């Protein structure tokens, strides 16, 4: 960024950061639901949003979408997109069940193989995108159908794998040191991705590529290889999400995680990562995930929504609307700087068509 910005660190720039704003919105949202979504039932027990159980529920539910969002963040920073994440989650869940039950593998080996399959799925995307220079949007649209289709073909659309050992189910349903077990996995992966994206040269180059692939190439960055790692990493994280999903629900089905890609992309964009690439942060993504998870769970506790029996619809509707608002908001900084540039007419250029 320019030198003027780096000269004034401290509270003012911290306050003006997008993440801070998002954090305030998140807290406001939480307080709102706490106020309207918490009730005391006839026996004097607090129910609804304010309970500890509900908070853990939010945490549990946000792990899978959160992992998908973490997988997507580096990809979107490179100005790419991966629409296939939720389909790959379904395929990995099915493969995991197949490895364990049909091939009779013990859980750890099945997990390792599932993670490898996730990498393979990501590698397929990566190979098509980097070696053939195809647009990520259309490649992952193809694999979106392919992965989900394979999951359906393997299970004939009917087989559901259930009856996992309870030691495995503890991963999705138990607690460790006060927190749900999968929250620790999630935090671990989040820390890893944060280190990669914000603290390594490798992760830094994602931004350079997203900003300008040509410029990155001239700067000596192996663009193809870096892009490939972003997609393979996404596949790996998605496989981890698939295992956690299976452990939470205790079953693996071909429609696992259907539609999650929308929530994940919304979380990433809401978190301030530009869909055009070049900028973004893991902290923002985590805040975005939290905002969506609180919204999704909070709405289900509002008396109005319970009466209408419309929690699913309302959360989808609000998420879509939230995405539109976040998108519209994302062009405000650009407009402001354009206005500022117009206020100082340095050169006598005529007023241009803003296209």
């Amino acid at each position, binding site marked *: 960024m320019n030198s003027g910005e780096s000269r004034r660190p401290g509270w003012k720039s911290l306050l003006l950061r997008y993440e801070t704003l998002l954090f305030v919105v998140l807290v406001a949202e939480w307080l709102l639901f706490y106020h309207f979504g918490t009730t005391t039932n006839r026996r004097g027990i607090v129910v609804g949003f304010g309970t500890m159980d509900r908070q853990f529920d939010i945490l549990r539910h946000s792990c899978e979408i959160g992992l998908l969002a973490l997988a997507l963040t580096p990809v979107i920073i490179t100005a790419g*997109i991966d629409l296939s994440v939720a389909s790959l989650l379904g395929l990995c869940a099915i493969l995991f069940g197949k490895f364990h039950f049909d091939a009779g593998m013990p859980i750890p080996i099945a997990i390792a193989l599932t993670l490898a399959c996730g990498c393979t799925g990501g590698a397929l995307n990566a190979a*098509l995108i980097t070696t*053939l*220079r*195809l*647009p990520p*949007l*259309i*490649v992952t*649209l*193809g*694999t*979106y*159908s*392919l*992965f*989900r*289709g*394979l999951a*359906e*073909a393997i*299970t*004939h*659309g009917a087989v559901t794998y259930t009856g996992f050992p309870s030691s495995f189910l503890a991963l999705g349903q138990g607690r460790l040191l006060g927190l749900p077990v999968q929250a620790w996995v999630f935090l671990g992966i989040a820390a890893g991705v944060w280190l990669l994206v914000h603290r390594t040269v490798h992760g830094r180059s994602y931004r350079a590529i997203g900003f300008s692939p040509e410029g990155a190439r001239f700067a000596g960055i192996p663009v193809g290889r870096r892009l490939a790692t972003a997609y393979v990493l996404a596949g790996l994280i998605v496989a981890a999400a698939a295992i956690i999903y299976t452990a939470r629900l205790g079953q693996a089905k071909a429609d696992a995680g259907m539609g999650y890609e*929308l929530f994940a*992309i*919304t979380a990433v*964009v809401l978190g301030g990562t530009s*869909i*055009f690439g070049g900028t973004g942060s893991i902290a923002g993504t985590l805040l975005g995930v939290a905002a969506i998870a609180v919204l999704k769970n909070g709405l289900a506790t509002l008396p109005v929504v319970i009466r*209408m029996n*419309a929690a*699913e*619809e*309302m959360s*989808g*509707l609000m*998420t*879509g*609307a939230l*995405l*539109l608002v976040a*998108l*519209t908001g*994302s*062009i405000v900084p650009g407009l402001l700087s354009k206005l500022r540039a117009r206020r100082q007419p340095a050169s006598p250029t005529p007023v241009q*068509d803003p*296209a």
Partner: protein
Amino acid sequence: MKLYFREVSVAVALVVLLGALAIFAPAFYQPQPLLSLLTREMPTLVVACGAALVIITRQIDISVGSMFSVCSVCAGLLAASGWPLVAVLPASVAIGAVMGVFNGALVAGLGLPSIVVTLATMVTLRQSLNLMRQGEFVNLPDGVQWFGLGQFAGQWTIVGAALLVLAALGLGMRHLAVGRFVYAVGSNAEAARLAGVRPRLVTFLVFVLMGALTGLAAMMNIVQSPQVQPLSGAGLELKVIAAVVVGGVAISGGRGNLWGAFAGLLLLACVSPALTHLRIEAYWEKAIQGAIILLAVVADGVRMRKEKS
């Protein structure tokens, strides 16, 4: 020939598939089921025409499935409340166009990426519909099915109307100045602007047309059954994008035509009946369609590489 290699190769693939069916499953060629298959695909064709235009301008619209559902339910409700068909049809088109205006305003007006905008409108529209209708079916009054013409005439009316839309848009894209503007904007918006085309206006109008065509397609769909399913448009967006891309329209804009999209649509539409007739399990349909999309984009990629070197 070389210029239209992609379109020709899709047509060849289609002919090969139809030939294989003629040899291994002649039962496929019975006039009435074939006409029914064709009629079922016609609404998709009309939407695919719009999607082709959108993709040629280097945008994408994945909200078509939701728009299709909304138009279907609205048209069904209007027909059920006693509106005559001649009034329901323009109303459905208008409802679609209004949704297109919304998408177009956000994409062309504010310069937001169309993939995310239409992802958001897709979900918002679908969930609003669910919220308001709770998945209820709409029963249509008598005289709406097949436009009151009887099945045979109704099917031919739908096929004829859809082919008319295809021909008009296909020829218009080739021979009218407006059609060339669409290609110009998709190839290079800045160059088009310098040449006097208004890229944002063209993009906006393409999105509006997309909405209007979706409204028309919804109308063609609801007359095919006595009830309106609220989820009739689910997954339509992928179907049309797949058809358009398989048909040789480049997702990077500025290339392709509607005839190719038509061939691509027919090819994908034949997969499902072909699986049944060749006794392959139907569960493979989605995977095979995904593989066809990937094959088509890989073919594009390989060809672009060859052209460069």
